[in-house]
């Protein structure tokens, strides 16, 4: 160490040449702004995104909200009707061409009037965020919103418990108000979720990660292991740019987890789970129900003609002495919809064997449900009204 006093310390501000003056910053700012604004738009033009009449957002891209938005923007025919909802609308146990929207199209004799706008893993608090931020293209249209009472079946399902819970689509839920007790993300995560929702470029980055990099950032993708023991890292020497195939991945041609051939596609009774005691939430305290109400109001504010389908919940799974509170909840939902003059349908439950669990129908269940809905005079009237 040389003896030198502190006043002799090198008084250098910069040890590199990355030092921009005001003119440089202006140019840099313009270029960066242009890149941020233009990239998602250009990307939409150059990336292939092929959809069919029964298209649904692939399971692996459930968190790709930018793609969801792009999908909705594609639907420019005002006569087409979007079905918003969770995995019941998406079709958890069934193939894409066996969902509710498919059977409604079949009933209506049209090929693509009804659009599957469901996303796997959603729930009312997340649907609210999805509709609010990524479904802005849907204005002055007819929309169907599914109300799944399962989300009010316990404090945990309603996200009311104090203990931290990890849940899907946390980036869609309200980050600060209303407060979700079991959502314990730090301020940075919450703010980054808000920024992602509001900055197209950031949503596009998530799309890039979802579509081509296994839902990871590019650096993390290069570090990804193959799950073997000892681990190997197959992407270490790969060129990340070569991964970008410029075509949105689709669902696998054969989905082993869905459809009649899948072992999951069976009646709920086959799982030997008997009737269940649910801890139904009071509607006036339910976070999910409040989010559902806000979603209806937001859609109506956009000029959308909303029709709500309540359930049908698998009432056979509800323990007998638990049916009272369930009915009370169901009636409360119906009462509010009536009060608010929201068109709704509350179909009777399907036969027990057509449910895969508490709320998801099997293929035949969807078919029957579509028939019931389509034959309902209220629905026909709603379809015809301008």
């Amino acid at each position, binding site marked *: 160490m040389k003896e030198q006093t502190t006043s002799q310390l090198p008084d250098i501000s910069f040890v590199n040449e990355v030092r921009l003056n005001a003119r440089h910053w202006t140019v*840099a700012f313009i270029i960066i702004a242009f890149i941020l604004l233009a990239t998602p738009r250009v990307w939409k033009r150059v990336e292939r995104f092929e959809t069919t009449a029964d298209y649904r957002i692939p399971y692996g891209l459930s968190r790709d909200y930018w793609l969801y938005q792009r999908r909705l923007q594609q639907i420019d025919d005002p006569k087409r009707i979007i079905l918003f909802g969770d995995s019941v609308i998406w079709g958890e146990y069934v193939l894409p061409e066996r969902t509710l929207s498919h059977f409604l199209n079949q009933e209506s004799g049209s090929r693509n009037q009804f659009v599957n706008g469901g996303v796997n893993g959603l729930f009312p608090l997340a649907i609210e965020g999805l509709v609010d931020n990524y479904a802005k293209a849907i204005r002055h249209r007819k929309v169907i919103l599914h109300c799944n009472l399962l989300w009010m079946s316990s404090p945990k399902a309603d996200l009311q418990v104090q203990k931290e819970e990890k849940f899907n689509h946390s980036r869609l839920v309200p980050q600060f108000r209303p407060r979700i007790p079991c959502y314990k993300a730090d301020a940075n995560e919450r703010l980054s979720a808000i920024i992602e929702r509001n900055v197209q470029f950031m949503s596009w980055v998530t799309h890039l990660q979802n579509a081509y990099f296994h839902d990871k950032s590019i650096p993390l993708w290069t*570090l990804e292991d193959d799950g073997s023991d000892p681990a190997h890292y197959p992407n270490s020497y790969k060129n990340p740019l070569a991964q970008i195939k410029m075509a949105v991945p689709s669902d696998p041609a054969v989905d082993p987890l869905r459809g009649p051939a899948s072992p999951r596609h069976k009646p709920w009774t086959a799982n030997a789970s008997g009737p269940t005691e649910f801890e139904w939430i009071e509607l006036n305290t339910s976070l999910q129900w409040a989010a559902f109400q806000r979603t209806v109001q937001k859609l109506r504010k956009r000029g959308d003609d909303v029709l709500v389908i309540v359930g049908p919940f698998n009432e056979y799974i509800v323990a007998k002495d638990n049916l009272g509170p369930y009915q009370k909840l169901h009636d409360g939902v119906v009462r509010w919809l009536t009060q608010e003059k929201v068109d709704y349908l509350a179909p009777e439950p399907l036969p027990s064997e057509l449910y895969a669990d508490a709320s998801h129908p099997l293929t035949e269940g969807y078919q029957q449900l579509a028939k019931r809905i389509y034959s309902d005079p209220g629905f026909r009237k709603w379809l015809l009204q301008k």
Partner: protein
Amino acid sequence: MLFHTWPFLVFVLIVLPVFFALKKTRLWIPWLMAASYFFYGWWNPYYLVLVFYSTVLDYLLVTLMDHCPLGGKGSEPQRRLTHPHFDDAVLKYAFIVAALLTVGAFTLGIWGPPTLRPTMALLGLICLLMTLGALLSSRKIWLLISLINNLALLLFFKYARFVIENLNAAFNWMHWSVTLPDPSTLMPFNFPYVLPVGISFFTFQSLSYTIDFYFGKVYRERNFLRFATFVCFFPQLMAGPIERARHLLPQFIEFPEVRLKNFTDGASLFVVGLFKKLALANYLSFYVERVYENPKSFGAPALMLATFAFAWQIFFDFSGYTDMARGIAQVMGFRLILNFNNPYLSTGLGEFWTRWHISLSSWFRDYVYIPLGGNRGGAFRIYRNLFITFLISGIWHGAAWTFAIWGILHACGIMVTRELERSAMYREDVPKILKQIAVFIFVCFTWIFFRAESLSDAFLISGRIFKAAWTNPEVPALMLLLVFVVWLYQFLLELPGREVLKTGLVRVSVVVAMVVYLCICSSGAGSFIYFQF
């Protein structure tokens, strides 16, 4: 609150406009102090007690020191002890208050709530020393109290557990039936015993003020808020640079000149720091962690590359933090000292330490090395001083033998190469690039001890680098590419081609590339390595 997170952006968007709006008032210093306390309290509000206590005590001690005569004239210990008298009214009041506090603290230390007793006993000791300082009217005693207090805080929070564990292990080895209690049992009101973030930085900064004042190198700051802002100035509070009072305090006297250049320079520094942290340091950390967590499973190439990666990780992490700190301060019009000057371009170990963590190495030079004798005396004394300084510097980084060995290795390295670096042969005949590579390799080797989880891991890694099989290291090529691009940029800075880097086109392109890369590829928001020190 980390610089590279969104809450910090919100914080800055509130703090800066208000700061500039207060330009024509006296409130800008209280605002800066409040902002800094909020920034620090964001981590853990309990930490605020500590930083406030340290600030108040050092402020008081310097005030009292200022009331004592210079040159030890006031201290005629025996006479003053037998015939107490005070030349200064302030010292008289200080004596009374300190004496009362001593009695109060010792009373609570004996009869107070059990969880409060150890703290009160220590506070009683500090107050007793203060009573003595006032009675003897001695500047030395005030300095001593500041040293004891700051170092005790540091020792307790940072090293107590390490020392106690080692002592207990030694007692056990000697079959003594003595077990020292864990330091957490000494915490008042059962507060959690956790290392306060940045304690090593703000204690050193505060301490430098009292030492400099004692030696007459700095004026006494009469405005408490200004002094408190100096100790906790938020850009550099957590991980430096460790500022000196004579450099930073005068900047708080007048509202800094508002210049466009401050904004553009500050933003440039901040973007570079952000890129270093988010794009480089965090990315490298994943590979380093993979290998260093389980070194037995990796071959020599992976261990070498992980060590190489760590060398760059720690540089990007720490210098990135410093760049951001300096950038934020610069936007406000304050200049913080340079902390890193492309250290991996050093041609000697001595030079390395004038380029790496400059504020800390200069601190150790001024307050440890020079007081020990510095370069005065024979070779033995110089080497002894170097050894002690580097050993302390190593231990400053953490309570583990690995850090001590790291410090010793650097001391040995400097001792061995000191004469070589001074020789004309080394200076003139050895190609610069060879010297740079040799220094880099040695520094990388020492980083093994810095990063390893334990001493045995460090020896295992150093051994396996030479003995283990040459297996596929599976290191991400993209990661290496990024590091080499930065390294190349640094080398270019020292070549005549530097002029190319100065053109507007290159500067703007580099910033645009960094920002776009950050938007697309940032690697998570991990904390900074140096926060633990």
